[in-house]
Each structure stands twice: as structure tokens, then as C-alpha cells.
């Protein structure tokens, strides 16, 4: 270790990893994929993988991806909730792996509700 700056850089890098544990970082958004039986049947797992893939592609580390078994009544699966700071929740229904790209990009990069 040569300098404080080098340590800082290492720290920022390492904190990205630990964001999942709710420590050492700010969480930009949480994606909650509904994994009820209807959701799984409609491809929720693929949607989840697509979200992870997209986040990785964009190099975004300050987001969380979680799951829930609660399904929305009468909503077309797969369902994804996007929770942003200030507890704003956007619920997307009938999400396809292709639609994920748009949701991730617009809710994170452009901070708006995506039209899918």
C-alpha cells in the first residue's frame, strides 16, 4: 500500500461487493421479483436472471435483487417491483426478459417509469 488514495480506491471497489449485506453503501434501487408458482410458471426465474445480467452489463453495483413469494392479486405474471429510495414502488406486470433491459435502464439511468 503506497498511499491513502490507493486504500480509498480499494475500499470503494470492495464496498460494491458488500452492498448486498446492507453495509458500506447506498442502495440505488431494489428489484423484487415475485416468485409465486404462477410467476415461476410464467418465467419469473428468467426475468430475475435477466435483471442480474443487465445490471452486470451496465456495471451497476448499488442495486439489490430480491425475491418474494407474495403475488399481486390479478396481476399478470411475472411481476417485478422496483423500489427506489423514498419508498417509491413501481410495479411492472407481464415482464419479459427483453422488457427487463428497458425497466433497468429507465428506472435507474433515467429515473422514470418505464413503459413496457
Amino acid at each position, binding site marked *: 500500500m503506497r498511499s491513502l488514495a490507493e486504500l480509498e480506491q480499494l475500499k470503494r471497489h470492495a464496498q460494491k461487493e458488500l452492498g448486498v449485506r446492507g453495509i458500506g453503501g447506498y442502495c440505488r434501487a431494489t428489484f423484487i421479483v415475485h416468485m409465486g408458482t404462477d410467476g415461476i410458471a410464467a418465467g419469473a426465474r428468467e426475468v430475475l436472471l435477466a435483471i*442480474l445480467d443487465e445490471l452486470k452489463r451496465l456495471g451497476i453495483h448499488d442495486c439489490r435483487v430480491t425475491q418474494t413469494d407474495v403475488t399481486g392479486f390479478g396481476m399478470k405474471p411475472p411481476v417485478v417491483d422496483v423500489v427506489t429510495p423514498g419508498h417509491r414502488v413501481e410495479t411492472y406486470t407481464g415482464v419479459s426478459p427483453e422488457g427487463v433491459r428497458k425497466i433497468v435502464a429507465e428506472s435507474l439511468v433515467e429515473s422514470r417509469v418505464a413503459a413496457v
Partner: protein
Amino acid sequence: MGVLYRAHVLVCGGAGCVSSGCRAVQEALKSELAKQGLDKEIKVVETGCMGSCDLGPVMVVYPEGVFYRKVRPEDARDIVQEHLLKGRPVERLLYHTSQREIIQQMEDIDFFAKQRKVVLRNCGIIDPEDITEYIARDGYEALARVLTEMTPEEVIDVVKKSGLRGRGGAGFPTGLKWEFCAKATGRPKYVVCNADEGDPGAFMDRSVLEGDPHSVIEAMAIAGRAIGSNQGFVYVRAEYPLAIQRLKHAIAQAYDYGLLGKDIFGTGFDFDLEIRVGAGAFVCGEETALLASIEGKRGMPRPRPPFPANEGLWGKPTLINNVETYANIPPIILNGWEWFAGIGTEKSKGTKVFALAGKIANTGLVEVPMGTTLREIVYDIGGGILGGKKFKAAQTGGPSGGCIPAEHLDTPMEYDTLVKLGAMMGSGGLIVMDEGTCMVDIAKFFLQFTQDESCGKCIPCREGTRAMLDILTRITEGRGREGDIELLEHLGTTIKDTALCGLGQTAPNPVLSTIRYFRHEYEAHIREKRCPAGVCAALVHYEILQDKCKRCGLCRRSCPVDAIEETTEAELVAAGVGAAGADMQAAGASQGAISQPASSPKRKPLFINQERCIKCGVCMRECRFQAINRC
């Protein structure tokens, strides 16, 4: 850039969970994850101790923060398939309160919620074998600041003003010790970490080394800078193999990252750190004995002064602090002395880690601000006494400390109040005793320990503790004499005044403090030949309550020495035992068949032959009708 994991499963890898089988759970979890193709999405991390040792093996699943306890390898399948794949926490593995309420989140459980973690800030949260996780938690930033922005005098000043006192037992002000050492003239100087945690039941130092070894490494380097030393030694006992392994790994990583070795942070400061493994003698926790042991000599104390700060390792100035003391240093540097001085009480600053053990619902490791009352620790965090029994006393400071009885439950836990009560903070062991504990027996237990561990160098400790132990043994065996209590007090105070080192000077404490608060129990043993708690085997006897006995014969079959014999009603009456039972039978007979005594009239009554009985208690455990009484 590495793979992004969407979830982290933190499996507690503290020694407590290792012994309850966390390694097998971790293996099962990993293989199940691989089977389900989740190993690229979900990371399994082995952490240090999370503190809730009686619930082990424990794990936490992030980002949700779901806490699982008592996980078996066969539960891995459900955790992976239900929770990690489908987002449905496995209810049967969640924590239940005593009111059967289910709690999912770790932070909502009283045991965790009521703690304040400074020393254990990273234990159970980071992977102790990954230096980058420590760095992510502000690790080595304090060292960087000390080396690049502060003078050694400023560092010592911060530590002094913080009010930090040694966590190893005596509570000597840490900053003062650093100052003495900095002013000492000899060269070279050494920094030593005392990780020879010897008190039975205390394991906070082990947990810090196992769960957050870098915090000690960083603090020792800071201390090295402050006093002008370039060489450190960590003295760990061989009984802590996992701590040694993780510390070794951490030291190697610190060297790799240039945080130990030559020219740290480009400031020209060099610091080397080595581990010295001790054989586990209790006396080697005493600083002069510890230094002798590091030098390769037999671990025996020597008179002080000269203090190690002036003449320590190989006669050179040496700074010795305990693991927990060191672990406080980095946060003090980072957050400032004002922050640290704001926690705790006027004379005891910061937090203290306690190891809860004994008859308490939640055993494990807890960290609370100094000055927290014993009641809060035992009832709010510890969950109260096992089996709804009554609190009798708590032993603090292990075999060197004393007991705090129920009337002092509201005592704030801090150095000076504990000393006033005849106990001491010690390293923070807290053994809780309920009404079924005999105080004479417990005093004998602790004295036996210190007697065994006495190094034999000075007479008060070697011979004096032996004499005290003989008296205690005599009392518990029903051979106590009038005047024994006074003799114990006399011996105890003499040993305290005359023994060479801390071991001998504190060895009589458990006896003196139990006499102080439970003198009546000693008197009952001596005068009435009775053990009020029913513990001392020689003073208890078992008898069969004839009115409850069903004469099933279970006790008779289970007795290892055939002490339970058949008798006749007439003999019973003649002996005066169970006369009440015989009366009841007579009464029952006159009321007709329905209220016949429960016992079979065809079988003969049973009684215990006291001469043959070895008081093992098997009959009492076996009896299904509570018909055997111990008194």
C-alpha cells in the same frame, strides 16, 4: 470487475458454530447451490462469531437479512430451493421468541437489537479471511491517518482522552500505558498483544481474532507508530487453532497489501508482526509471565516494578494490551475520542463484551455500553434464567472475580462499581447462577481452577490456595468446623496482600465474595450439615415419598448400586418413614375401591438404603411420578 452476487449467505464460522457442525452445513449449502445452478448468483461466506452461540449453527441471508438458527446439513435443500430460488423463507428454521412469536430479521431479535457493537463491529458481518472486506468497512484507514496525518504524540493524546481502559482485567488506562512506553528510553521497543484468554467461559478475544483479525493487526501497527516500535508479537494459546489460522492468514494478507512490513503507506514506517503460540497455562495471561513465555522461558511472573513499559521483552520497553483493547483503537482514531468518550459512564468509557454462560436462556457473546445494568444484560439480552427459575447470582471476571447477588441486579456494569461489590470486570466472563447453584460449591470450583493453574513460584498462592481449597472441600463434605469461615477470610485477605502476581492476588475473590453475600449458606453447611441448594453430594440424601410412589419399581431397576429395597408396611411405620403414605393408604382403603392409593397393593413399598446410596440421582431422574425427593 467480479461477478455480482444477488445474495450473500453468511454462515457463522466461530468456534461455537464449528463445534455444532457449521462446516457440514456450509458444504451442503454449496453443493445444493451448485446443483440448482445458483452458485454464480449466490455467495456463501464464512464469517466470525455472530454471538448467539446457543442457536448455532446460525446463518444470515442477505439482502433480506433473514436469520436462521440450528441449521442442519439436511436443511440446506429447503433453504436453497425455497428461500434462495423462490424467495420463501424457511419458517421452521426462523427464530422463535419465548412467546412462540416468529422473528425473521436478525436486527429484530432482542438479543441482537439491544447490543451496541464497537469491538465486534465486523464479527459475523465480514469474511475474516478476505482483507478487502475489512477495508470496505473502513479497515486500515485509521492506520493510514495515523501514519500520514498524525504525530505519535497526537495518537497517544487521542487514546488518553478517549478514556479507554484495558479490557484484560485490571482496567489500567490504555493511553497512559502507551505514554509510559513512548517515553521509555530503551531500544528496540516491542508491541505485544495478549490473546492468552484463560478465564473459563470467556471467549471474546477468540471471537475477535476469528472474526476480525485485521482490527488487531491494524491497532498493533498504530501502537507501534505511537510508541516507536517496529516489531509486534501476538501471544495466542494453542487451544485456539482457528484463531491462530485466521490470524496467520490475515497477517500474510496484510504483508501482501503492504500494510505490514517495510515502508507502510510510503511513510518510511516499518512494522513486523509475529505470532507466538502459548501452551495454554492460565498464568501466562499475566503480563510478566507472558513475556517470559515469549522469550522461550518457563511462564512465571516476576515482581513489578520494573513494569514491562520500561523493561519487558528481553529487557526492552514493551507495550502489552489485550485483544479487545486493541480492537477499540481503529474506531477511536476514525471517529475521534469525543465519540468514544460519549459511550459508557464517567469512569468507564466505551463498550464491553460479555460472554454469557451458565443458567441463562441465551448464551453467547454480547457487547453493550459500559454502565448497562446486570438486569438488562441478564433479562433483556440474555432472555432471563433457564426454566423460569430465580436468579441467584452472577460471577463476573471468571476465577479472579466475584459474584453479584440478586439484590445488586441493578448495578451498572463498570470497573469501579464492580470492584466495590467485591467482584471485578475481568475479561468479561459472566456466569449466571440460579437458585439451584450452591455458592460454596461454586467457590470451590473456581478455587480448584486457580489452585491447579498456580505456577508455584510464591508461597501465598501455592500453599495458601491449597489450604483454602482443603477447607472448602471439608465444608462441602460435611466436615466443616466452627471457625472455618473466619479462617477462610483470614487466609483469603492474606493471600490477596502477599501473592506475587494477579493470579494469586485475585484467586481468593470467589471465596471472599460468596462469604460476603452468602455467609448463611456456608453456615448451613458447617452447622446444620445441610446444602441449601441440594448440590453437595455428601450433604444431600434421597428419599421416596410414599404418598406419591406407585411402586412401579423403575427406580429400583435403574439404581446402579441396588440401594433401593423392598420393605413392608409395618417396617415403614416402625421406621417412621413414609408414615404419611401409610396413613393415606389406610384412609384410601376406608373410602372404597375408587380412591385406592395409586400404588399397587400387591407390591411392597420401596425405600432407599442410605448406607448404600451413592447419591447419583438416577432414581430421581427415572421416576415418572416425582416420588423421589432430594433434601
